[in-house]
């Protein structure tokens, strides 16, 4: 009995290695996210947290397990994954703006191409969203002329242009210079406050503490601890969580 918008059951992901061996990255993850919920996913590097996120919209193909989005099993071959992705957009560590298109075109291309909006609507929406992320004056700029923080804010606006139900953030501030992290977190905070459903893989513990409703600590491909930010950050139960937090919070 639940009303999850995304539900994950016993998710496994195994990578085949060049030498014929296997790398078990996810070893049975079951969890879910409610509409409007913000979940921060933390864990040591190599723990599988990014792979988990990338399985949710099948950027990585899960080896086994079930992922359902609004009740539809998206791991089934019958699922129209392109449609699911247009409702579950992703923000990448390295932004991946389209460098051959202006900021405006970056925002309008997919909604127009997928016939979700006509060009005029998309254009109006692009202006709104750029104003929302504080970059209204950059609409006709080329991506290569923006700073890292500006690029990531455009990337968030590009995802929002699809009017998604869920946003997936894959370490959105990890590739940024320290002085630019704040401006991106501010945009994400505003998004969280507006009620967006968010999965956030991050190393920004302070931000996760402040914004998340729930925190997942992933280690060795399983959720080894889960709870409210207060429970996980202030009173961790698992020794592994304590060790990890003591390392990252010491700074």
């Amino acid at each position, binding site marked *: 009995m639940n009303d999850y918008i995304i539900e994950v059951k016993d998710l496994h992901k195994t990578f085949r290695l060049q030498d014929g061996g296997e790398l078990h990255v996810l070893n049975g993850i079951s969890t879910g996210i409610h509409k409007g919920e913000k979940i921060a996913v933390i864990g040591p590097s190599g723990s599988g947290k990014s792979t988990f996120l990338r399985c949710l919209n099948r950027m990585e193909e899960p080896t086994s397990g079930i992922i359902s989005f609004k009740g539809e099993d998206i791991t089934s071959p019958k699922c129209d994954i*392109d449609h699911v*992705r*247009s409702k579950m957009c992703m923000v990448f560590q390295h932004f*991946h703006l389209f*460098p051959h298109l202006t900021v405006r075109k970056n925002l309008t291309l997919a909604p127009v*191409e997928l016939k979700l909006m006509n060009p005029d609507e998309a254009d109006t929406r692009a202006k709104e969203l750029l104003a929302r992320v504080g970059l209204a004056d950059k609409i006709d700029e080329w991506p*290569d002329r923006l700073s890292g923080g500006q690029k990531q804010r455009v990337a968030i606006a590009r995802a929002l242009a699809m009017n998604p139900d869920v946003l997936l953030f894959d370490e959105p501030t990890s590739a940024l210079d320290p002085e630019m992290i704040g401006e991106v977190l501010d945009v994400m905070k505003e998004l969280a406050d507006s009620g967006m459903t968010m999965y956030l893989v991050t190393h920004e513990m302070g931000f996760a503490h402040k914004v998340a409703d729930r925190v997942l600590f992933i280690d060795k491909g399983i959720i080894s601890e889960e709870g409210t930010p207060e429970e996980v950050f202030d009173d961790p139960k698992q020794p592994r969580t304590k060790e990890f937090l003591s390392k990252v919070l010491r700074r």
Partner: protein
Amino acid sequence: MTMRNKQTGAGRGDIVLGIFALFLLYALYSSGFFTAAAWQDFNRRFYQNFVKDSRYMMLVDGLKATIFMTSGATLIGLAVGLVLSVIRVAHKGGAHIPVLNAMAETYITVLRGTPAMVQLLIWNFTIFASARDLNTQYIAILAFGLNSGAYIAEIFRGGIESIDPGQMEAARSLGLSYGTSMKLIVLPQALRNIIPMLFNEFIALLKETSVAGYIGIDDLTRAGQNIQALTLEHSQPLVMVAIIYLVIVMCLTRFVRKLEEWLHRGRRG
């Protein structure tokens, strides 16, 4: 990325030309060229080789044949290269076409692994041996075109694979299909790298067609040899042929460099 190592050597055009001219002047000086008698002799032979009986027209017609073959072969090469690269890129992108892919790979390996001239001879003297009324220029276009297709396929593939996979991921993550992402996001970026390399391929092909004389085509090189046979001259006709190739190649090279600058305008570092 695989590249042909037969592109023009004229890297810094002006400096190279300058050194070349100095070297030539020194060679002429030391061989006593700047005496009145030698100069007269040079003029007389020049007249014999190029002016008398409008012999320069042999070079003009040869140049026409060379350009015709190069252009035709490039068009065939583009078509073949496009098909081959689509097969290889789609196979890597997850389309399950192992047989087609193996065929494309074999084609590329064989045609790149044997000399273009041997291929030309095989087409003319083996495959089309009995087609005596077929214009040999068309055989040459076919041979050079199919050969060039193998190189152009690698140019296309290399251009596409040089684009950050994150671009495809970002496009797919917005719900665009593989084909749409390829068409609107990856290919337009890849073309910036591909187009200059296609012109380089054209330049390489222009020089490569100089072996067409082996199957009896009066191309630019062969025209020079034909003049040699008429005038029994050993140097002037072929040096002239070399100069014509060099001028064309240097003009094209300069054009490609301008084109590259234009394609990458407005982009930082």
